[in-house]
């Protein structure tokens, strides 16, 4: 019996140590709300992408600043590398995502209707991936809670 117990404790210890490499930040309501809010604000701005960039510059700068703040917020959360990497890609103006599209709009002055429509869909999908991942963290929390409820 003592031997069995020792093996079990040893097994659990190894498992717990190996778990440190797969730790993931828990679901964050603030992140989720900000992701939805920034997606809607970006969509609203991109509906005007066929017009002069200068007209919307103030609002665009504000959205980009909010996105930069979110990147920093996610960067400083423990065990949150994936969310941070996703935000980093979307805020990098040299990548063809959210900040990259605003940069192109700025460079061109105004975008054509067809391109603006297609590019806007791409950017919305990027936000969707981010939101999907945040929601998946909630499933994890839900599963753990269900386990606790079942046990007690």
């Amino acid at each position, binding site marked *: 019996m003592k031997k*069995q117990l020792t093996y079990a404790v040893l097994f659990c210890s190894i498992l717990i140590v190996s778990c440190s490499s797969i730790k993931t930040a828990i679901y964050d309501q603030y992140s989720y709300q900000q992701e939805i809010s920034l997606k809607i604000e970006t969509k609203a701005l991109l509906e005007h992408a066929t017009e002069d960039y200068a007209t919307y510059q103030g609002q665009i700068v504000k959205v980009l600043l909010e996105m930069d703040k979110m990147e920093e917020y996610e960067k400083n959360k423990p065990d949150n590398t*994936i969310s941070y990497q996703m935000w980093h*890609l979307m805020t990098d103006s040299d990548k063809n995502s959210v900040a990259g599209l605003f940069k192109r709009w700025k460079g061109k002055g105004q975008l054509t209707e067809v391109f603006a429509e*297609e590019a806007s869909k791409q950017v919305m999908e990027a936000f969707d991936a981010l939101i999907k991942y945040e929601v998946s963290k909630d499933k994890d929390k839900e599963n753990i809670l269900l386990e606790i409820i079942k046990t007690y």
Partner: protein
Amino acid sequence: MDFEVLLKELRKNLLIALGDRYSEYNNQSKKDIDAFLNASKVKLKRWTILSSEGQLTESDLEWLVKSQKELLVLEALCQAGVSKIALGYLKNRIIKIVVETVKVAVLA
């Protein structure tokens, strides 16, 4: 543009990005990758048609194709993250089962 070659390349890169670490979830990942690639195929065809009609410039087309590559990276990150969460949950369950089994054995 050869769609099949491009899609094969995209699939290969996505699987490499996901890696063997999450092999337990490969079936689900593969389903998601296929869904993503099918969506990519539809987009690439539409963009090529729009480009041939002169509605998209060469530079527009290039921007959009690159944006699809960025989406691929986001999808790979998301898949890896979801697998990581599921793997963490599985390990929590294993620990719980071991602890419960030992508890029963000790009390018996």
